[in-house]
Structures are given as C-alpha cells and as structure tokens.
C-alpha cells in the first residue's frame, strides 16, 4: 500500500511538497504536510516527527498523532520515545487532549506497551468527562485485539463502564462488550433497563450496536411471545395438517402467557427509532421486532422497511434481501406494499432480481393475475438477464399457485415464439420443469418444442428439449426417432451438455422402440466412445453395457428399462431465501448466507424464563437514573429535556395507548423491587 501510494503521490511529486511548504510556513508543519501524502518518510523522518508530539499547537499535535498511528508498527523502538508524552497528555486538563492521547496510545500496535495501555484505560474509565470514558471503551477493544490475555482485566473495566449513565459511553461500551466478552450476558442484567431507557438519546451508530446486543439478550432471558399466537402461524400450514390435529396442538399450548415487563420495555422503547434517518438504525429495529416481538406486532416494521427502498442502492440491496427472507415466512406483512416492489427500468439488475424474488414470495390467488400482467412487461425488458429471471419467476408462481398453472404454461408457450433467443431458451427450461411436475398429456407442447430444436442454439435449452422428448418418447412415437436421427447427424458439433442428453434419448428409444432406432443408437454410441470429453465416453460405456445385451452384461441389463424410464421426482422450485432466517437479519452472515467469522448465534427462546429479578437495581439507584444528578437543576431547556423527558414519557405514555396493562405490571414490578431491597437479598453492587 505504501508503495502504491508513493507512486500516486509522486505523480504530483514535488509540487505537493512545495505547496505545503509555502502555505504552512512553520517548519514543523511543512514536514507534516509534505510527508504524509507522499508516504516516503516512514523511516527517515520518524524521529523528527515524534519530537513534535510535545508541541503546544493542537493542530500539529493532531497531525503527529495521525502520523504516529500510521507508522508506529514499523518503528516500534522509536515509537516508544513518544510514550512518555502521551502519559503526560493523559493528565492534561483539556478533556479532548486526554481523549485523543488515549486514542492514539491505544492505536499504537506495539506489544511492549500493553501494561501502560491497561493502566491508562483503567484511569480513563474513571475520568470525569464522558468523552474520555467513551474513548476508554474503544481502547478496550484495541487492547484486546493486541493481547487477548488481558481479557479478565478488561472485563472488569467493561463491567464498570456498563454502569455509566452517559449516552456518549453507552454505544461504545456495548461495542466493546460484543467484541471482548459477548457471552458474559450476566453483565447486562443490571444495566438492561438503563440501556433501554437511554436508547433513544444515544448517537445513531451506538443505537445499532445496542439494539443488536439487546436482541440477543432478549432471546436468552425472556420466554417466547410467539406461543400465544402460534395459531396464526399454523394457519399457513393448514394445507398440510388436518384441522383437528391443529386444534389439539393449540389447546395444549394455550398456557396463560404474559410478557415480561422488561421485554415490553425494550419493544416499546425501540419503536420511535423506526423513524430514524439512519438506515442502519431502522434495519436494526426491524430485526429486533422480527426476532423478539410478538407476531402480531411485527407488522409495523414493514412500512419503515419499504421506506428504506428509496435510499441508496446498496442499502436497498440489503433491505430487499431481508424483506425476501421475511416475506417467505409471513406474506401478509408486505402484501399491502406489493406495488412498491414493482421493478423500475432504472434499477440495477441485482435489485431487479431481488424484487422479483419478493414478488414471487408475495404472490397468491388474489393478486396473481395483476402480477402476471406485470411480469409480461418485464419479459419485454432490454435487460436480458432480468427477462430470463422473470421467466423463472413465472415458473415458480405457476407451481406455487395451482389455479394459474395452465395460464402460465400457455404464456410460456407463447414466449417460445419470441425473437430473442435467451428468452426462448429460458422458457424451454421452465416449461420442462413445469411439465415434469404435471405428468398429464402435453403432447402438443412437446411437439412444438421438438420443432424448436432446429432453430434454437442455447445448449441448456436444447438439452432440456431432448430430455423432455426422451422422457415422453412413448407419447410422441413418431417424432422421437426423427429427432434422434437429426441429432445423430449433428452429434459431433454439439455442446457436451447436449451430447449427454442425446445419449440418454438414444438409450430410452432403444429400450422402447428398438426396431426403428437400434442402428441409430449404435451409431451414436460409437461416436460417443471416441469423444474428447471423458464424461461422455464414460456415459457411453455405461449405457452400452446396460442396454445392449451381451454375454458379459450382468443382471442389471434386465432392469435397464426400469432404470431409464423410472418415474422421476419433479424438481422443487424453491426460493433461495428459504432457509436464511436462521441468521440474525441485517448481519453480514445473512447477506452471505454463510456463517461469517465472529457470528453470534441467536439462541432459541428459553423454555422457562430465567429469574427476572436479576435485572432489578436498588431502588435508590433506579430513581437516580431517571433524573441524572447535576442536570435536573439547570434551567436550560435544552439539557433539561433529555433528563426529564424519560419521566414524562413513562408516566404519560402508559396512560395513553396499550400501556395500561404495562403500567399495572410495572407497579407490581416496582413493588417487588422494594420487597427485594428490604429482604436484603440484593447482590451488593460492585
């Protein structure tokens, strides 16, 4: 990288240095301006630059910091020279300098200074300024990646910082928690309610991290809210299960379920964030709802997700993928927004195919006719890849919704006379699959396709047609041998894929109609025997042994007919998003559909909820939390708002919407709290 950078910089070369010099004026700065972009000072200028770390000028100091972080690894010994300056800076009265000193110190990846870093982090975590504490939280992760052996000590610091009540710190410390000790869920208990309440005011990137962590937390600590309305879900399975069975099931399950108030708190407090301008936050809330809220409430996220479709295309890509996964399980959620997924000619191909995927998932008896009309427009699209994908989609709709299978099939047959080859080829492949699923009489279509064989050149389509004819050779007794004759002529010039199917066709015809095709098949087998491709030679040898009876052939050839003309199971046209829902939505793993390193499993709901009282905090502390000290007294409306709105919200909200139940539950909970405190069973706070 340095090399490349040097090259690019050298093009502008000296001019950059000169300009920098003129402008900067002072000696030190010219050093900085000129050197960093050129990247060549890695060795020779290091000592000179490091000296400047003690500079009083904050601008220069910052540049030296940037420089240090970049080159320290190569110049470990020299970097150590600067350490003492940082240690001094850590005690600077200015919070910003303290913070950046800590930041740079922790960014220098030199193993010798681990103890110094550890000390600095410990000190900073008790700093008065929340900004410095935030940086301490970041430093934790850095130190952990440098030296994992410090884990135990770091966890202590994390535990301490988790108790912090500043919104600035919350996001960073949760981030550190996720990196260092994601399995220590017990550290979260006491801070759970605080985090929920702070959430709205945390900066947006922090919100994302916290929401993801809380999702995992909720999955381990609360019982599943899905039981109560499992009936809903079962309705979708109705086709497979008899009603009686189902009733029995739901009866069994109908235990009284009440949601843990803390569970409710989380769901309620994240709801306003659906209105955030940051796509990542909205996505995070959406996945939280998807994974932990009762099924009846998930619906509210669909609107926000649909809104995200108007943002940048990469974001669209991620959102559409997630919607695709959701729409498989719960069609109803996105059905009202069907039209939002209509493809626009300006969409890039990847977006188009995802939208198609979703449209397919949403298709049902009611809307299929509208959808098919829409698909017709797509097939005419200039984007051939997209047109082909549309045809696949039509095929899938046809299999999923039995009412329209015939309509779709007719439509596809019409497409066979399309002028574009790719469209025709794709239609052939899809028709093949459809016909396979319906072993009814479709002689006409097969005849039509046999005619196509003269004109179409795409190998997959040719192979499909041949296979289809072979499979139905008894239904088209006149055409099949003729097709074989033609193919025998062009055998040598065909694609490997087609050759294999010719061999298959020959074998099947030999078995059913050996009088007419015996010689033809033998001719083809001879050609196959000397083919360049070993797969084809292999297949030829196999088929010959099987169908041509001779003294060496064993018992198998008796069953040749059974082997070749067995009833084949129809292929299942399935969504590629079918099994993706076991990954937490919105994560990289979900997008890749494989487990990425460091993926944290979402655990299943526990059968019995763990003791909810672990989340209780001593009453006194609870009160403090809602009116942070020092802020409440100030008359400045700006600051006041954040501290008191929580209170307002808590009291007013509960009276308004569905909060009544919650309110009483909460009262109960706080009663329990007080009992708890008086029983002296509370764990002493560390």
């Amino acid at each position, binding site marked *: 990288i340095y090399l490349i950078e040097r090259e690019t910089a050298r093009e502008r070369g000296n001019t950059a240095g000169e300009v920098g010099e003129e402008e900067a004026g002072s000696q030190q700065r010219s050093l900085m301006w000129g050197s960093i972009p050129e990247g060549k000072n890695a060795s020779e200028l290091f000592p000179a630059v490091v000296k400047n770390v003690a500079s009083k000028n904050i601008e220069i100091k910052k540049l030296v*910091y940037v420089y240090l972080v970049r080159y320290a690894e190569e110049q470990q010994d020299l970097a150590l020279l600067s350490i003492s300056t940082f240690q001094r800076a850590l005690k600077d009265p200015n919070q910003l300098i303290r913070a950046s000193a800590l930041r740079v110190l922790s960014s220098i990846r030199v193993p010798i200074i681990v103890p110094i870093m550890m000390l600095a982090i410990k000190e900073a975590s008790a700093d008065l300024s929340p900004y410095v504490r935030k940086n301490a939280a970041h430093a934790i992760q850095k130190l952990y*990646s440098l030296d994992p052996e410090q884990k135990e000590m770091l966890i202590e610091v994390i535990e301490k910082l988790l108790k912090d009540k500043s919104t600035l710190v919350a996001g960073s410390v949760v981030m550190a928690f996720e990196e260092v000790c994601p399995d220590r869920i017990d550290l979260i208990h006491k801070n759970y309610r605080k985090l929920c309440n702070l959430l709205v005011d945390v900066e947006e990137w922090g919100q994302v991290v916290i929401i993801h962590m809380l999702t995992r937390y909720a999955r381990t600590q609360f019982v599943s809210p899905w039981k109560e309305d499992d009936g809903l879900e079962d309705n979708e399975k109705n086709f497979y299960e008899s009603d009686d069975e189902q009733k029995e099931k739901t009866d069994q399950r109908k235990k009284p379920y009440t949601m843990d108030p803390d569970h409710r708190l989380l769901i309620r407090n994240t709801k306003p964030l659906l209105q955030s301008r940051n796509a990542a936050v909205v996505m995070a809330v959406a996945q939280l709802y998807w994974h932990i809220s009762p099924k009846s409430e998930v619906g509210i996220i669909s609107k926000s997700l649909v*809104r995200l479709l108007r943002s940048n295309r990469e974001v669209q890509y991620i959102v559409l993928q997630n919607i695709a996964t959701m729409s498989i399980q719960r069609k109803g959620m996105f059905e009202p927004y069907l039209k939002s997924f209509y493809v626009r000619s300006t969409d890039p191909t990847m977006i188009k195919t995802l939208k198609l995927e979703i449209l397919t998932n949403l298709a049902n008896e009611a809307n299929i006719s509208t959808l098919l009309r829409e698909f017709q427009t797509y097939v005419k699209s200039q984007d051939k890849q997209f047109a082909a994908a549309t045809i696949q989609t039509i095929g899938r709709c046809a299999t999923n919704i039995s009412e329209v299978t015939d309509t779709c099939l007719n439509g596809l047959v019409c497409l066979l006379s399309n002028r*574009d080859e790719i469209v025709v080829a794709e239609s052939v492949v899809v028709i093949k699959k459809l016909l396979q699923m319906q072993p009814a009489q479709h002689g006409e279509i097969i005849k039509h396709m046999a005619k196509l064989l003269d004109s179409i050149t795409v190998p997959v389509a040719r192979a499909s047609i041949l296979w289809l004819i072979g499979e139905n050779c008894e239904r088209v007794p006149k055409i099949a041998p003729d097709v074989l004759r033609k193919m025998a002529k062009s055998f040598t010039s065909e694609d490997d894929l087609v050759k294999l199917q010719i061999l298959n066709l020959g074998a099947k015809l030999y078995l059913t109609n050996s009088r007419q095709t015996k010689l033809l098949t033998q001719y083809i087998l001879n050609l196959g025997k000397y083919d360049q491709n070993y797969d084809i030679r292999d297949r030829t040898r196999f088929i010959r042994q099987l169908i041509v009876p001779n003294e060496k052939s064993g018992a198998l050839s008796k069953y040749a007919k059974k082997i070749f003309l067995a009833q084949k199971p129809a292929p299942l046209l399935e969504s590629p998003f079918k099994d993706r829902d076991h990954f937490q939505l919105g994560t990289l793993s979900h997008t890749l559909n494989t487990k990425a390193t460091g993926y944290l499993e979402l655990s299943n709901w526990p059968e019995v909820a763990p003791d909810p009282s672990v989340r209780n905090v001593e009453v006194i502390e609870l009160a403090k939390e809602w009116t942070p000290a020092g802020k409440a007294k100030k008359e400045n409306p700006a600051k006041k708002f954040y501290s008191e709105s929580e209170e307002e919200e808590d009291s007013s909200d509960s009276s308004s919407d569905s909060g009544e139940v919650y309110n009483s539950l909460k009262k109960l909970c706080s009663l329990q709290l007080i009992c708890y405190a008086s029983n002296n069973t509370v764990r002493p706070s560390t």
Partner: protein
Amino acid sequence: MSASAVFILDVKGKPLISRNYKGDVAMSEIEHFMPLLMQREEEGALAPLLSHGRVHFLWIKHSNLYLVATTLKNANASLVYSFLYKTVEVFSEYFKELEEESIRDNFVIVYELLDELMDFGFPQTTDSKILQEYITQQGNKLETGKSRVPPTVTNAVSWRSEGIKYKKNEVFIDVIESVNLLVNANGSVLLSEIVGTIKLKVFLSGMPELRLGLNDRVLFELTGLSGSKNKSVELEDVKFHQCVRLSRFDNDRTISFIPPDGDFELMSYRLSTQVKPLIWIESVIEKFSHSRVEIMVKAKGQFKKQSVANGVEISVPVPSDADSPRFKTSVGSAKYVPEKNVVIWSIKSFPGGKEYLMRAHFGLPSVEKEEVEGRPPIGVKFEIPYFTVSGIQVRYMKIIEKSGYQALPWVRYITQSGDYQLRTS
C-alpha cells in the same frame, strides 16, 4: 461488528488512500478487489458485497471512486453501507465534490477525517457540521497557537455549538414534495406516491427551542381539531433528523427540536394516497419498419389553474437507429438527444388545466438491426412552486430562546417530479 479498514480507490482500482482501523486484515487484500469486481461484472452477478477467502469487501461507487470497507467478521451490513454513504456526504461537504482530484488535493484532511469518522471500526462523529468545527480546511489559514477546543463533541446536544450569534434571527422553511409515479402502457396507475421533505435554513442565536406545527391528521384528531374547515394530511412513515425528540413525537405528535446551525433536512415523509397525476401524458408511437417512426405526445396539466409548472421536460424514447428528426410542437421546443435515444420536449411554463401537443417524425434505416429493442418509459420532469400535492401546510413555527428575541419564520412550498415514469406500449 464493523469495518476493519476503509479504502478509497480510483476507477482502475488503485488505492488512493486507506486507513487501517483494526489491523486484522492484511492491507494487501485490496489487490483482490478489482479483479473480483471485474469478474463478477462479466458474469453479470455484480453485488455490493464481494468475498475473497475470508475477507469481505463492502463497496460503493461514487463518481470516479470506489469506497471499499473490508471486514473479516460478521459485520452489520446495513451499518457499513450507511457509514460509507455518510463518509461520502462528509467528504462532499468538505471538498464540494468528491472525486479523485479532490482526494489527491486533500490527503491530509482525508486522513484526519478518516481518523475522526471511525475508531477501531466503530463510527464516531459523522456530522459534518461538527467535524468542520475542528478539522479546518487546509486552505483556511490556521490560527497558530490558539488551541481552541470545540465543546460540541462532548455535549449532550452534539449537533449545535453554543454561543452562535446572528444580528437578524430568521428561519427558512422549504417544503419540497416530489411525486413518484409509475403508469403502465394502457394508462392505469401502478404506483403513485409523494415523498416530501422539510428543509430548514436556520439563522438563530443561542440555543433556541423550536416547535413545528403541521396540519397532521393524527395530531388534529388528538387535539379534537378535526373540523371540516381544517384540511389535514395523514403523514405516513415520517423520518426525522436526529435533533428531533422522537419520544415526544411518539407521544403527542409534537415536532420539537433544537436545530443545528445552517442548512439541514428536518424531516421527510411519504404519502401513498392516490392523487391525480399532475402531468398526464398520452402517447402514440407508431413504428413503420424500414421507413419511419411517428410520435404523437399529448401532455395535460392536471393541477389547479392558478399554479404553473416550470421547467417541464418530457423525454420520449425513440429507436436507437432513428435519423432525420422533425418536430412540431404547440408550445415549447423539442430536441433530439441521440446519445440517450430520446426526444426531449421542454416547456418553460405550463399552467394548470392546459393541454399541449407535440409531434415528431423520424426516419428509419431500411436495414434493420438484429436485436429487438425494449420500450423504455416516457419520463417527465417538472417543478411547481407555491403548491404541495398533499396539501400539507406549516401552521406555525414557535421559536423559544431564553434571551427572548423575536425571530421570523419564512415558508416556501415546491412540488417537483421524482421518479415519474409512464410506460409505452
């Protein structure tokens, strides 16, 4: 959780600048990015996420640059993309335009910014207003010795710094609605929606507390104002700038906030209520193979007579091998743009209720090309000032500051075309 390193590459995939945040991905991995991208592009399976072994590249393209984040771990994909776009936004604010040249000219600032935007893979301060306070432009003469430290980063209100002063206290409110429309070939509306944004330009001293009142239906119902004479609008999925108190809005639909200084987008909303398409297009495109194409387009303004649409541009697709254009228009002028294969008919002002006509004639070569062309849709661009389709109105803007000054709010409404497409048969 997030990116290990961020690269900025030029069009050819050569790294211009990079910042390694975590050091767990070798910096040379980026060399695999471009070949991978090319390969996927050829296969036609381009995706914003590419993987090489264990390393994943999440990338976006901006003008002639690629911004790539690499990660080994299970990152939050939407967070990374949001961050990359945020980075583009910040850089664009600094350099006006983000492109190769501006990166080369501003290496130092880019380094500083990358350093501030993210720490160890976790996004930090990403508000360009705040960043501008302490990462000053190279062009600006840096006042030497004066170590001013911006307090904003550490504030609870991170988007506004204290001690702002203006002689005249004013707020400008722009309500901009854009209409997205999709009509299919036989004239039925497939999709019609309004995406509105409210933009503010704030020149206010001190720490003012603002409250914005809209004719929001839910609010009217809450306060019992929903009489017959008050027209109200039902806002759907509203999204706010971070300064708006979401919890407050959730409770009683009050939009209250302490604004950042200068320009910003306060909120955006969406309405999917059916409205009559503002400009309706009827078109007949007749293609006589081997000889000519005849196009007839009728445009009708379906909005109030008092309003006028400005800068109307109707682009009608023509076959790519068309030649010798001839036009006749009842108003405005038509122009053939061969590189886009469209005729653009522009009308400077288009009053509501009027109907205009354009005819175009093209020759076609006698030799036809082989591939069949699809039919791209007709697109329309326009802008209607002093008018909102949804009927949204700013009822009041209350400005409260502890010094008690008087401030003036100014409101302006504009409706414009968004993604406005009419498919042709």
